[in-house]
């Protein structure tokens, strides 16, 4: 009998995947749940349900059947044709922005907003950043690039399977000269033998495929993280340390949320740059941070225990260098946490 139920569960699993592939989220989840009812030990079905629900929120089960994953994958990518400039971005109204986003991918956007930190005006900032990311190539083409005039080209990732109609090569603004290696974009002409800025390794031929829903989810995570990697580098190059730290944090959060096997190939090469971004944001290591939030407000905030530990060490006498030594969580995580606390205005450096 076990073999029989396996077959039925397998069939339901496949059915769910097929539905999910067509964007019929609720039907897909229903099929996987049915598979689980038949075979409660079916890990694959459980993981798929968990993943989709975690990714798309509880509304996933009742999501409209006509939302296609193809649309999900069309989240503005590094390689999309730019549509805005900095000036235009500043003028973007939040409502307009929301409207634009709703047209493209309601599920993913909603979930993304839900996952944002709850303190401050982060949501608005995130929208602005997303706009900026998608605009970076055009911004540079319009003369806002750094002093050495190195054209900005996304280096961390190339997506070639998201949209059949928009190949990355075509998406690069014509003003940015490129050279080719095989069938993918690698780096700007003239920088072939240069060490990449901020110690980040360029990955010459990364190609993200999306054969299954999980692959597709990974592709989305990679794409978003890659954008943040690029934004982090761009921000560092232009001296915007706040932006660099925030982009680094976004990329790392994207990696945290990504399903297994994760997106280490995007994050790991950029880790040194992220550390640099956090360090630059935190400032000199001899500086002494102080708490600027009262205990009552602090207790109502949400932190993990590592942050709690670091906070307990901030007593107005210990410098950053000492906190890094005693934090017990390594330099990278300590700097990241300090940067996060600084952004959330929990601490300051007087």
């Amino acid at each position: 009998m076990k073999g029989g139920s396996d077959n039925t569960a397998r069939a339901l699993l496949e059915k769910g995947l097929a539905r999910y592939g067509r964007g019929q989220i609720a039907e897909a989840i229903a099929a996987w749940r049915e598979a689980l009812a038949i075979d409660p030990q079916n890990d694959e079905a459980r993981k798929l349900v968990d993943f989709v629900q975690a990714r798309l929120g509880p509304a996933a089960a009742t999501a409209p059947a006509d939302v296609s994953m193809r649309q999900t994958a069309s989240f503005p990518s590094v390689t999309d044709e730019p549509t805005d400039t900095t000036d235009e971005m500043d003028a973007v109204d939040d409502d307009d922005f929301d409207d634009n986003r709703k047209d493209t991918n309601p599920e993913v956007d909603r979930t993304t907003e839900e996952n944002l930190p709850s303190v401050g005006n982060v949501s608005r900032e995130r929208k602005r950043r997303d706009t900026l990311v998608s605009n970076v190539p055009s911004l540079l083409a319009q003369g806002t690039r750094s002093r050495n005039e190195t054209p900005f080209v996304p280096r961390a990732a190339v997506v070639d399977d998201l949209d059949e109609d928009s190949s990355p090569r075509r998406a690069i603004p014509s003003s940015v000269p490129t050279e080719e290696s095989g069938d993918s974009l690698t780096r700007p002409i003239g920088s072939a033998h240069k060490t990449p800025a901020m110690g980040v390794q360029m990955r010459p031929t990364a190609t993200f495929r999306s054969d299954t829903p999980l692959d597709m989810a990974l592709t989305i995570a990679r794409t978003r993280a890659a954008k943040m990697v690029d934004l982090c580098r761009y921000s560092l190059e232009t001296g915007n340390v706040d932006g660099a730290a925030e982009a680094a944090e976004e990329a790392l959060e994207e990696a945290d949320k990504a399903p297994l096997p994760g997106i280490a190939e995007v994050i790991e090469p950029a880790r040194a740059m992220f550390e640099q971004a956090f360090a630059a944001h935190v400032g000199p290591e001899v500086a002494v941070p102080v708490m600027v939030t009262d205990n009552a407000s602090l207790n109502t905030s949400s932190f993990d225990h590592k942050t709690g530990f670091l906070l307990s060490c901030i007593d107005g006498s210990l410098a950053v260098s000492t906190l890094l030594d005693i934090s017990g969580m390594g330099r990278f995580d300590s700097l990241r946490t300090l940067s996060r606390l600084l952004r959330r205005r929990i601490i300051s450096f007087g």
Partner: protein
Amino acid sequence: MSEVVIGIDLGTTNSCVAVLEQGTPNVIPNKGGYKTTPSVVAISESGRRLVGHIAKRQSVTNAENTAYAVKRLIGRNWSSPAVAAIRETVPYKIIQGPHQDVRVQMRDQSFSLPEVSAFVLQEMKLIAEDYLGHEVSKAVVTVPAYFNDGQRQATKDAGRIAGLDVIRIINEPTAGALAYGFGKDLEGRIAVYDLGGGTFDISILEISNGVFEVVSTAGDTFLGGEDFDRRIMDWLVNGFRKEHKIDLREDMMALQRLKDASEKVKCDLSSVREAEINLPFLISAGKNQALHLQRTISRNKLEELTLDLIERTLQISRKALDDAELEPSDITDVVLVGGMTRMPKVQEAVTEFFGRAPNKGVHPDEVVAVGAAIQGAALVESTSDMLLLDVTPHSLGIMVVGGFFHRLIEKNTTVPTARSHIFTTTRDGQTSVKILVMQGESERAEENEILGEFVLTGLRKAARGEVEVEVTFEISADGIVSVSARDLETGQEQSITVTATSGLTEEEIQQMAQENADYAVAVKGDEDVERVRQQVEKMVDQAMTMMGEVKSALSGTPFGSEGLEAADSALEEARTAMRRKDPDALQKARESMGRTLTMFQTVMDKPGRS
């Protein structure tokens, strides 16, 4: 003016430094304002050496690379049972040294125990130098009364490695009594009850005509304030487990915070009847969520949790009195030493036990260092008439037939001293005798420590018991033991001088002292570089603030573009230098940024600018 000698209480858990200034003893606070500094040394992930409070604050989260309570190990042999026992209880790695000595491994480096103690002594030296404003090179360091020669020598070596000439090692209870009796005509029998952070010692001293003599001493090297902290911690952990079904011991960060909070609340309860423990975000309960710990503990609860620990100190006190053949009522004064004696219940128990209230005239955390400073001053000031006599901490003797230990000098004998005893041969026709010099209290020679051996040859062939050999033990004021054996018939003599060793060779000590001095210079160099880097950073910030105005002021002027290019170049140079932390480049950047700022200021101050 005579040279300043600092007094250092090199404690198992905390250390303290004091100096006698114009006849008044002063305890010197560290940079954080605390008068005691944890005797904790750590190597951080970045390879930085951490000493004191900083090292203590990461002692749980970086437990493998944090050495504490090395005083329990110093001067001991690798094969000693104490070392084997301690190895089982500490999280840091204890390894065997090249001379059967004990070493500590932190990160990928191994450190001898005198070296680790030297890091603490060096910290105390720096605290004193910061306070006094000049270099300090001489110190009196205290050790427990039961320390043997090897342990005392290891402490002296630690001083040398730290760049200090330890002119005298004195017993902690003696130092405590000295501080207590400072400025008074002290006479009588004093009990020094020393409950520190990690150890408990009780010593009975006889003070007569300015002579301090340790009559008996007893203790427990694994009983102290940390045990009291652990009881509070256990109470908190168990309560939290009941409430949330989470074991806080499984998380090192939570444990570190609990440990710190337990110690703090214990101290608070010495002055208040109730105290609150508030640890927000103590342990994770999901992404970006953490549980808080908030509890109130009363003094009564603390006493209930630790009553057996206090009882143990009284049992040991009873043993010390028995050794001295005294009753509690024979004690004329009780001196409290160690932070734990601030606990009201401890004071109450001591009062009840001795039938008299303990003396509270001196701070228990500081009293030993103060005594050491008083002794230090007495040693260099020719006008001082204070006499402080050391005693031998252990009995000295030789091994005799049957494997027994024959004592020539009993423990607690005041030094300098000399004792002789006549022995005879044990076999017919015996022409030589082997003198095995030992130290210890056991009747069985094998259970005591061998200090050295030599052979007296050329004895007359005779029946056993006929040839007499006189063995003489001498201990100088510096604690150097000489043993000689003389054939009373022929006058032939052999002798040996026993020099205590810490387990390090002279070359090793010199090398360690040099490395330590180099490290101190390197740290100072890093601080200097950081100072310049900060100056450059400030200058860059200042220039960036002025840049807008300067640009507008210079626009269209012939000098404008040239000047701004130079400023840009100086800024770029400064940023690169700051990133690389290159000392030379930073110096250059400071100069060029200085010029840039002067130029900016000139432009901005130009008459006619509105």
